[in-house]
């Protein structure tokens, strides 16, 4: 288990841009919050005289560090520098410098020394991150009896700018460390969409806790509804949207029937295009009505135990921040956050300090406030429908949101809170059990926290080494029964799977079992209990990010597989890089925006893509195969869907929700889902080969392309849709049926049309509406 170090995403971005994008060696200093393993600032040592193999910091850097330390609360944490390819470890020269730095900086408990290389072809280990062309390998040097020990440390990327961006917040520069009443926070001035100029204060445990939002007009802090059930990158966006919605309602005094309508749309509708989840339901909490039962999927009981010695909790997770802002850090304990699905989840009141909470982040707040004794009653969020995992300091598998705050030694020791583990959820881990929290390590490492960082690195699982140690290559064994059908070369191929629901998780499993060696999986959602019946997931996965859970499915089949899991929306990952790294792209999401966008990137990069999809009630489905020379996804669906619909057969495509663009969940038989997904998997396996590979799978996939029948529709019932009409003359027709159609590219298609008219997807992004407004106002 590697010790974690938290690193703000803008720091990682800056390192990648300043050091990763240029030839070695380059370097700079890392600063962060005092007393915490949290890096929040990077100072590039641009003037350093470097050679290809050597970086030595300048005196100017030392001066700049001193100036920064004097001007802000940030403190020196270490030096990052680059190495030539193939050397992602500190050199012996580096190590003697670590010893010197530890001697010179007695306040430094651990000297951080990340090494940046351009090694991007080999798998990442737990202490490494990949960003663009760079690999960042994190190491730390700590004092020991005979000098120091150097060990790898695990970076946990805190998605600060990504969350701000998602929320349409424009900060005036990167947040900087300041001290407020004894607590160190990250602060920045920013424009909040629809709410004007604010000062944002982010605690050390953000995004597990809400930021403090202080309007610059001097009015009190804005209360944010902080839903830990929402993926971290979406959380601020959802909170801001809720706030705006609440304000707008107040302002316009809309009549009750309108409000009813908006609410009646339910949670699914509220999951906004720009990211709020359950925001409609949270509006009340934002208004400060604690203990209110919220809508479907949220805390029914709303029991929030106010501790005797500490402040009362509220359903909105923002109270903590407010208390800190109000200058009373001690009151920060006992803040509950809304557990979206912790129905009846009795709050566990801590004995001394413990306001119980349905979920939450109280622990870290108190620690942050410098008062570990007050830590109690902090629960972790059980993001699952089975609900109820409220355990102190626990890092439950389902503690998606709260994971960042769990595992804190102080929290673990101080708490005696009982945990209401719901065994069905497989969720809660015993109170105070640090060991267990640590035990969740591989998950935490690459799971909850990593996923929250929107850029989770690869997690090799326990696997790579294990497989190697046993001296056997599991991938080779996997191949025992596929000779002549699949090539062993699949172990070197990577598939990108966007969407890890019933189709995506199945695809991941089947491709892993077929010997595909590397996976990149992207999905922003969390496994819910209702998913278990129709996916590759198990009850124990509930609460885990789908991307991570799918990665685990892969590793459980082939521990030697390389898996990158991104708990993020397609907009929040570097699609060009992910697509570029993949040999085949599987678009297993029903979000039309994601289908079009990912399809565009794949076509542009020349990567074949497969799009499986199900029709209403899984009574039928479709797969589209798009590769160079064939029609793109947009051309295929734009033509065929409209044409088959116009045959008078009626609408077949699955309904999507207007608010989310996502599929409206419908009943459907897993067997029927798998029927379509299996054909898609077979096509994907084939496309992972070269066109002239002499194996059956390649013949199948490239046969489809050669014949130009790249759009297949499936019927799962005998009289379904167009099949009854079409198959009437064929004897003995019954489910399952399929029809392979030819679709044409439109010559003016910006994706697959005449090459000169094609557009580079990287050149387009969705403009932010508040940004357009700001431009107009100028």
């Amino acid at each position, binding site marked *: 288990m590697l010790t974690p170090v938290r690193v703000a995403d803008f720091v990682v971005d800056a390192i990648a841009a300043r050091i990763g994008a240029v030839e070695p060696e380059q370097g700079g200093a890392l600063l962060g919050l005092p007393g915490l393993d949290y890096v929040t600032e990077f100072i590039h040592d641009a003037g350093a005289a470097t050679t290809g193999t050597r970086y030595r910091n300048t005196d100017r850097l030392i001066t700049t560090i001193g100036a920064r330390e004097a001007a802000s609360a940030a403190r020196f944490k270490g030096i990052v520098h680059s190495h030539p390819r193939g050397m992602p470890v500190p050199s012996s020269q580096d190590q003697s410098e670590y010893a010197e730095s530890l001697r010179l900086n007695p306040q430094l408990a651990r000297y951080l020394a990340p090494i940046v290389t351009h090694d991007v072809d080999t798998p990442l280990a737990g202490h490494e991150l990949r960003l663009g062309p760079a690999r960042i390998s994190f190491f730390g040097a700590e004092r020991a009896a005979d000098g120091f020990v150097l060990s790898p440390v695990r970076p946990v990327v805190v998605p600060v700018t990504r969350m701000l961006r998602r929320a349409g917040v424009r900060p005036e520069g990167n947040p900087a460390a300041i001290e407020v009443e004894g607590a160190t926070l990250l602060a920045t001035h920013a424009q909040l969409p629809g709410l004007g100029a604010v000062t944002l204060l982010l605690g050390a445990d953000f995004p597990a806790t809400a930021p403090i939002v202080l309007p610059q007009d001097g009015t009190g802090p804005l209360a944010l509804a902080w839903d830990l059930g929402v993926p971290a990158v979406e959380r601020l966006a959802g909170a801001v949207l809720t706030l*705006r919605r609440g304000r*707008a309602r107040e302002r316009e005094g809309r009549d009750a029937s*309108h409000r009813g309508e908006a609410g009646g749309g339910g949670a699914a509708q509220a999951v906004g295009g720009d990211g709020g989840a359950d925001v409609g339901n949270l509006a009340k909490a934002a208004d400060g009505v604690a203990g209110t039962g919220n809508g479907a999927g949220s805390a029914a009981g709303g029991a929030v135990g106010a501790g005797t010695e500490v402040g009362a909790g509220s359903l909105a997770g923002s109270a903590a921040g407010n208390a800190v802002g109000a200058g009373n850090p001690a009151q920060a304990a006992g803040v509950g956050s809304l557990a979206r699905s912790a129905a009846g989840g009795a709050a566990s009141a801590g004995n001394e300090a413990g306001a119980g909470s349905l979920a939450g982040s109280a622990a870290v707040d108190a620690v942050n406030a410098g008062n570990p004794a007050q830590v109690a009653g902090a629960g972790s969020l059980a993001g699952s429908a089975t609900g109820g995992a409220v355990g102190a300091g626990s890092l439950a598998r389902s503690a998606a949101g709260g994971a960042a705050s769990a595992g804190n030694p102080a929290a673990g020791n101080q708490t005696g809170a009982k945990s209401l583990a719901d065994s069905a959820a497989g969720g809660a881990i015993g109170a105070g059990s640090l060991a267990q929290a640590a035990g969740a390590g591989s998950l935490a490492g690459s799971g909850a926290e990593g996923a929250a960082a929107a850029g989770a690195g690869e997690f090799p699982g326990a696997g790579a080494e294990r497989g190697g140690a046993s001296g056997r290559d599991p991938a080779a064994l996997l191949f025992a029964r596929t000779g002549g059908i699949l090539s062993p070369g699949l172990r070197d191929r990577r598939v990108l799977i966007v969407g890890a629901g019933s189709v995506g998780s199945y695809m991941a499993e089947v491709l892993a079992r077929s010997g595909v060696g590397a996976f990149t999986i992207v999905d922003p959602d969390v496994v819910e209990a209702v998913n278990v019946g129709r996916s590759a997931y198990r009850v124990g996965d509930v609460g885990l990010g789908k991307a991570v859970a799918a990665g685990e499915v892969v590793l459980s089949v082939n521990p030697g597989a390389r898996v990158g899991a991104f708990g993020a929306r397609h907009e929040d990952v570097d699609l060009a890089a992910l697509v570029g790294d993949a040999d085949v792209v599987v678009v297993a999401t029903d979000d039309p*925006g994601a289908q079009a966008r990912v399809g565009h990137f794949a076509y542009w990069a020349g990567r074949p893509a497969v799009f499986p999809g199900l029709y209403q009630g899984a009574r039928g489905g479709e797969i589209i195969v798009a590769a160079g020379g064939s029609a793109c996804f947009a051309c295929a669906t734009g033509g065929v869907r409209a044409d088959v619909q116009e045959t008078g057969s009626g609408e077949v495509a699955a309904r999507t929700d207007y608010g989310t663009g996502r599929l409206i969940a419908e009943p459907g038989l897993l067997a029927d889902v798998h029927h379509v997904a299996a054909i898609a998997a077979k096509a994907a396996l084939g496309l992972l080969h070269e066109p002239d590979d002499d194996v059956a799978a390649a013949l199948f996939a490239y046969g489809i392309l050669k014949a130009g029948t790249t759009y297949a529709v499936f019927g799962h019932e005998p009289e379904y849709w167009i099949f009854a009409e079409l198959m009437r003359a064929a004897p003995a027709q019954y489910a399952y049926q399929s029809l392979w159609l030819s679709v044409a590219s439109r010559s003016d298609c910006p994706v697959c049309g005449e090459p000169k008219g094609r557009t580079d997807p990287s050149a387009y992004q969705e*403009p932010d509406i508040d940004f357009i407004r700001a431009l107009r106002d100028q």
Partner: protein
Amino acid sequence: MSDVERTDLNRLRDIIRSAQQQGDQYPVDPRARVTVGSEGEIYTGQAPVGRPLSKVQHGTFAARVRGREVEDLRWAAKHMPRNTQFIEHRDARGWCYSFLSQMGRPYTMFAYFDGVSYQVKLVEPRLEGLVGAHAGHLYANGRLCLSQSGDSGQPTLEEAYSKSVLWATGMDVVLAGYPFPFSTNNEFEYDL
């Protein structure tokens, strides 16, 4: 707007819904057709000659991506409101335009190409997040849902502009407390 005869909303609704029921996105018969003028005015039936007009895709607001017109700028100068401003910025590139809806409400929109199709965002009034996405065909991030496929976009700037004008009048109706009138997928809300 006063010099423009206001369109009969019921007639407009009947034309659109009838086209949708017949699956005819671009009716040939002028009487069954709606067109949009360069200042956001809507014509039903025979449109005046000698004016720049935009064809309207009559399909549901939730269409087909067919390709991209190349001379967008020139086209916009002739067919879009006089106040249209082309914004060219790294983070936002497209056409910002304002017009009065059939009910006289001012709307400002931003049309842009997303690499595959043309999208429109509502700039003013600020309704995103306030009007349900299904009820108003407006996503929480301000984007109009202009079609069923192609990620809610339209294949050309012409169709995106014209449909955004139609949308605005539909939104007038929604803001007046009634269901969105121009989409058969809102039909159940009419108790028909």
